[in-house]
């Protein structure tokens, strides 16, 4: 697993944990049914308050992203179909942010399409 926390980020640590675990699931690093690290282990690994990790785990469980049956630890509950839907939603969200930024810098959609064409035709992208 490749989980990291950015201490400089204004995003609260528990939200960073949620995002990091979701990314790990979406990228295939964690699969449906996999056991998440224990709260204690992840807290030590990321140098976080155990309460912060617990809060992230509760939020993931509340979203139906994982479940903790019989208290034996949190397991990922994301079937392949749902994973693809989530991946698409995350990408759309990123794209939307990107477009908003581009428009605020004064670029039109046509400009962006031209940029994409140009990058596509660069030798390294063929």
């Amino acid at each position, binding site marked *: 697993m490749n989980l990291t926390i950015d201490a400089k980020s204004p995003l609260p640590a528990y939200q960073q944990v949620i995002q990091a675990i979701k990314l790990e699931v979406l990228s295939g690093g964690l699969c449906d049914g996999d056991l998440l690290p224990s709260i204690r282990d992840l807290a030590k690994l990321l*140098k976080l308050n155990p309460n*912060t990790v617990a809060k992230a785990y509760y939020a993931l469980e509340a979203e139906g992203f994982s479940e903790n049956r019989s208290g034996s630890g949190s397991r990922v509950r994301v079937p392949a179909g749902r994973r693809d839907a989530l991946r698409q939603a995350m990408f759309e969200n990123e794209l939307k942010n990107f477009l908003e930024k581009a428009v605020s810098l004064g670029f039109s959609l046509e400009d962006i399409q031209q940029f994409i064409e140009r990058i596509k035709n660069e030798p390294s992208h063929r």
Partner: protein
Amino acid sequence: MNQAIVETRELSFGFSRKKVLDELCVSFPESEWAVIAGRNGVGKSTLLRLLAGVLFPKSGTIVRAEAARQEKIGFISDTLSLFEDWTVERAIAFHCRAFAVDRFDDRLFTRLGLGQTVRIKNLSAGERAILHLSLVLSQQPSLLLIDEVMHMLDPYIRDLFIEALIEHMAAKRATVLTVNHTFSEIEKIPERLLVMDGGRFVVDEPTEALGGLMKKVISREPLPEALPCFFKKTDGIYKEYYIYPFREELRAEHGLEFQDIALAEIVKAFIGGGYEQKRMA
């Protein structure tokens, strides 16, 4: 809210005529990591000593939960004082007797490759800190009071120190109270920041909310009086104004650029000398 593990009621303390704590009321719940910041000599260590039961209130009271009876309070002072001529072994035996400890937890100490026949005076600052931490963790404390010792640790020992605290907190739901100057490494850990000034806490906020409550304005011109300026640094051409409590409406009302501040910067600003504190009424 979890049950309070320790709380102070109108706690006052002073040395001769100097008032250090002024009717301080504060409460720390179970399983919380809180950081106390503030200028040097402002009373942070004094408060820890009072909570630890090493000093006694001049007036007011300290109420401890049953879980935080004397032998379940782990206190590490910034002086890390032990009898210099004793061996580690003797210090451990003494501490275990004094705090009714069954078994000394030697895991950290062994990881440093240290034996128990060494004399205290031959330990490095980092080794001393780890010995202290091992001693107090052996108490299985429900309340850990740790004065600023992290700045004297090298990065490896500091990691060891912090991991052991996290481990203990996870295992025992302990409350951890640290006084910190060097803060960046543990920036994301504490859930509460308290800033002490004038014998009281002038800031007491959840760290998650603090980013939204405290902003910085950098300006060459003085700021409008109406802004809640908590303190300012005015030694350069560009003055820095720390706004607290910040509200989103202030952006529209004043048309200034309110910048986000990292927690470590907030703590550093409160410690450093280059600011003029504007006392809260």
